[in-house]
């Protein structure tokens, strides 16, 4: 590991200034991903700016009835928060489906959004990787890609974004707030992650040196009837091979509102807007759920080893929406 300077900051402007002054500086949150990547030699910062003591550790109700989640709120505190559990239960489920109790106590909301892919070629510095070393190639295309992307990937990179939390946030129209030396800004979570194209090393639309300060959830009554379902290769403490965050409002058998987002299928949490459009105003039936899933997944371009994900996602969508429809009918 490269040697580095360590600076602990107590205010946001100080944090942003310290990062701005050093090109190879990184913000340190819980460190569960960054410290691991530093040990592997993937990340080689010359300065760490520790943001864990910033006053961004609260979950608060906004004036319009939404929630404002500070960037240094831990995954544990977010999942356990009564308002999140009551009004956005799929968000609690998504966070609890991720990592382990120890890691959730360390990991922060801001860090979770900016965590890096777990593609084994990305984390192995002896391998080529267009994301880590632009232009060096992508061994996953012809190599181990069982858990790689089926949507929105390119010939340059097929890595997935590993977050569960971000999938639920995408379904609920979350907005990310950030601060830079030039002032504050906002981005819709679904616009935070850039298209892969031929620049997989450029991952987010955040300006250089930006510090994520929080995430705002607008009020969404439909979210009270929501669910996160994650499929993985063991019962606990594993990344998804496919996941769905869904919220559904059905009246008299008709879909009034639906939210749907997929995880582990793309370089970003995948908001399934085609499926949402196909469902809204139509019948809440298994046939309609399947047709909507197919409409979204028509754009899938699986590789030789991950075509199973298309079927997996279709089945997940039907199962989760069917459960939610039955629960609203009750």
């Amino acid at each position: 590991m490269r040697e580095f300077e360590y600076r602990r900051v107590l205010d946001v402007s100080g944090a942003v200034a310290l990062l701005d002054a050093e090109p190879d500086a990184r913000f340190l949150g819980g460190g569960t991903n960054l410290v691991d990547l530093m040990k592997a030699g993937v990340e080689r910062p010359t300065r760490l700016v520790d943001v864990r003591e910033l006053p961004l550790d609260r979950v608060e109700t906004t004036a319009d009835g939404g929630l404002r989640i500070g960037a240094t709120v831990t995954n544990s505190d977010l999942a356990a928060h009564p308002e999140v559990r009551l009004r956005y239960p799929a968000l609690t489920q998504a966070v609890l489906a991720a990592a382990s109790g120890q890691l959730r106590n360390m990991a922060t909301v801001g860090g979770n959004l900016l965590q890096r892919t777990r593609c084994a070629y990305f984390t192995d510095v002896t391998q080529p990787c267009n994301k880590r070393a632009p232009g060096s190639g992508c061994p996953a295309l012809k190599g181990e890609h069982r858990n790689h992307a089926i949507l929105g990937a390119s010939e340059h990179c097929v890595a997935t974004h590993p977050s569960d939390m971000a999938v639920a946030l995408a379904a609920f129209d979350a907005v990310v707030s950030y601060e830079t030396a030039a002032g504050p800004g906002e981005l819709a979570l679904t616009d935070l992650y850039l298209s892969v194209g031929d620049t997989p090393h450029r991952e987010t639309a955040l300006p250089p040196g930006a510090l994520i300060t929080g995430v705002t959830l607008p009020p969404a009554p439909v979210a009270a009837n929501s669910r996160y379902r994650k499929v993985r290769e063991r019962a606990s403490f594993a990344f998804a091979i496919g996941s769905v965050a869904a919220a559904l409002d059905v009246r008299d058998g008709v879909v009034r509102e639906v939210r749907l987002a997929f995880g582990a299928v793309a370089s970003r949490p995948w908001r399934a807007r085609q499926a949402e459009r196909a469902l809204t105003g139509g019948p809440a039936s298994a046939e309609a759920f399947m047709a909507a899933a197919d409409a979204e997944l028509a754009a899938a371009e699986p590789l030789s080893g991950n075509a199973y994900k298309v079927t997996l996602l279709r089945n997940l969508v039907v199962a989760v929406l069917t459960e939610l429809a039955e629960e609203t009918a009750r």
Partner: protein
Amino acid sequence: MAPSTSSVITLNINGEKHTLPVDHRATLLDALREHLDLTGTKKGCDQGQCGACTVLLDGRRVVSCLQLAVAAEGHAVTTIEGLADDGRLHPVQQAFLDLDGYQCGYCTPGQICSALAVIEEHAAGWPSAVTADVRPEAGPPPLTAEEIRERMSGNLCRCGAYVSIVQAVARAAEARGTEAPRAEEEQDDFKEAVA
């Protein structure tokens, strides 16, 4: 002047203050074992995946292999060495001993620190990934074997002593008395209770 890549820090470990120089690259795990001779905390994977290095930071379980020592300054660290009270084992330690919650023992300090926090998290009303209804009005789920397995999934045991580990956690939880937690109040008391 080149920026400093090491610092003299003061760590609060098991209620005692220790002042030591650390390279910023040092993890809390390495500081405990290599600098302070507190070798009860074990190094397994060193990647946050096995839980052998679990300690409590301000009363909450964390993996010390991914926690930089320099970033732990100003926080209370509790290790396996800090659990017994004047020679009397902590109830979680006693339950592991009574029910053979181990075989070789290497993962045991991490299992015990994690179990202790699991019991407090459950008492504070935290749901888990196997909790059927996470809404607050559903109340806390009973601490079933399924709940214990899910909540302990960050601690691996290569000997496979899981059957008795689950029993030990269940017994320790019973002994603590996890009847109907008052979620709000207990959240506030949580850090003190386990620190």
